[in-house]
């Protein structure tokens, strides 16, 4: 490091620090509002005071890592994983695939993606789900996968059914798959939901509507992707996920010329 970059580092408020850059501060306008009376449960479950905003520290810049040793061979195949391949789940067979990227547009390699969903009738395999639609004995409803070196992931599953839920008079959730993504930093942790192109329930859903920026809602709607469908077998939907990125630390740890 040259004396010039050292001086610049001091000028920017601190000495040059080793390691990768800080996380890019979260743009909370990209996200749902925490408090939304149309989604009634959010009323008692949202903070009333502002969050404490600070620059990230190593606590948020590091995070857990998972490897193939943590996963089973059928974990990403929800059609088969509940029966360990003995029998197939009922429903419209779909491939759900996409990339996990960061805000710089770089693929996030080797990161864990977990999903859970209702069965084709709109019923979850969860003690608290008392919806009258039946359980499918051959469907568990959860899956997990690691992204490859370019950030690609894929799940084989069935299209979940819409389901009613107690909120306003007659609210229904559009068909959706819950996604949990880690990234490489605890501060990148994200849970979201994927919706399906063309579903008329999306525009009527109060949970979707907690996102006030229409263009951000569109980011959760996966298009039908016939290029990844297989004739006489399955359809496909493409769903890319963008996590927080890290600032390029030009004056912190870059050897000259890089």
């Amino acid at each position, binding site marked *: 490091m040259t004396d010039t970059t050292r001086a610049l580092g001091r000028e920017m408020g601190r*000495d040059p*620090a*080793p*390691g990768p850059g800080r996380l890019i501060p979260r743009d*909370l306008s*990209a996200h*749902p*509002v*925490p408090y939304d009376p149309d*989604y009634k449960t*959010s*009323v*008692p*479950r*949202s*903070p*009333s*005071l502002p969050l*404490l*905003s*600070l620059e990230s*520290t*190593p*606590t*948020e810049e*590091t*995070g*857990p*890592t998972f490897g193939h040793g943590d*996963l*089973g061979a059928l*974990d990403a195949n929800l059609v088969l*994983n*509940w029966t360990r391949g003995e029998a197939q789940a009922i429903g419209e067979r779909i491939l759900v695939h996409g990339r996990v*990227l960061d805000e710089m*547009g770089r693929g996030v390699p080797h990161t864990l993606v*977990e*999903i*859970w969903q209702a069965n084709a009738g709109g019923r*979850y395999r*969860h003690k*608290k*789900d008392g919806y009258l639609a039946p359980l499918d004995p051959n469907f*568990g409803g*959860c899956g*997990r996968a690691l992204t490859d070196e370019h950030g690609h992931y894929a799940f084989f599953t069935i299209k979940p059914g819409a389901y009613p839920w107690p909120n306003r008079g007659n609210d229904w959730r559009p068909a959706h798959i*819950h996604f*949990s993504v880690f990234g490489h930093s*605890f501060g990148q*942790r*994200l*849970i*979201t939901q994927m919706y399906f192109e063309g579903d008329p329930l999306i525009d009527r859903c109060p*949970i979707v509507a907690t996102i006030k*920026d229409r263009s*951000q809602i569109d*980011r*959760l709607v996966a298009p039908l992707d016939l290029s990844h469908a297989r004739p006489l077998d399955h359809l496909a939907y493409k769903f890319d996920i*963008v*996590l927080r990125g890290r600032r390029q630390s030009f004056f912190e740890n870059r050897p000259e010329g890089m």
Partner: protein
Amino acid sequence: MVQTLDTLRETPSQTAGPYVHIGLMPGWAGNPGAFETELGQTPAGDGAKGERIEITGAVHDGTGAVMRDALIESWQADAAGVYPGQDGADPAVSGFGRFAADPDTGLFTLKTIKPGAVTLPDGRVQSPHIALWIVARGINIGLMTRVYFDDADRDGDPVLSRIEQRHRVETLVAKPEGEGHWRFDIRLRGDGETVFLDL
């Protein structure tokens, strides 16, 4: 007009919903057949250096009711203040925990080791702490907070020192309840509201 930036926007969060357990803790949720392993069950494995601790508490909503459906993840350094993945980290410490409120009592328990103080690249020292991330039905974006310890030196901690209303610092401090046992409650809204972090 100006040039366009080539950065992307973060994907929006959505609530984890009431059924998050079957996705993230399927064995705990009664679906043990789903996966062969459940993640986040041992933040500190056998042979991990440091003091064994158990942190118990509950998540309370704005009416004071205990939430029986919250799911929490934890992330921490090892006993020397080094994060897993960093040079010299204790190989027995994964640092990552995942646990849920009991569906009957609402109590959660995190079994781990007490982390060490973390020295920042600029020389400031973070008092020993564990980061928590809380999701549940009704929480539209996961809430980040930290557990600090009542018996540790917290002066100069860069996060705690930025809390303007000083009495709120206590919402981030676990209290001792006997040898190795700590109590930490999280209040989402209203009286005693926990300080949540955006960092």
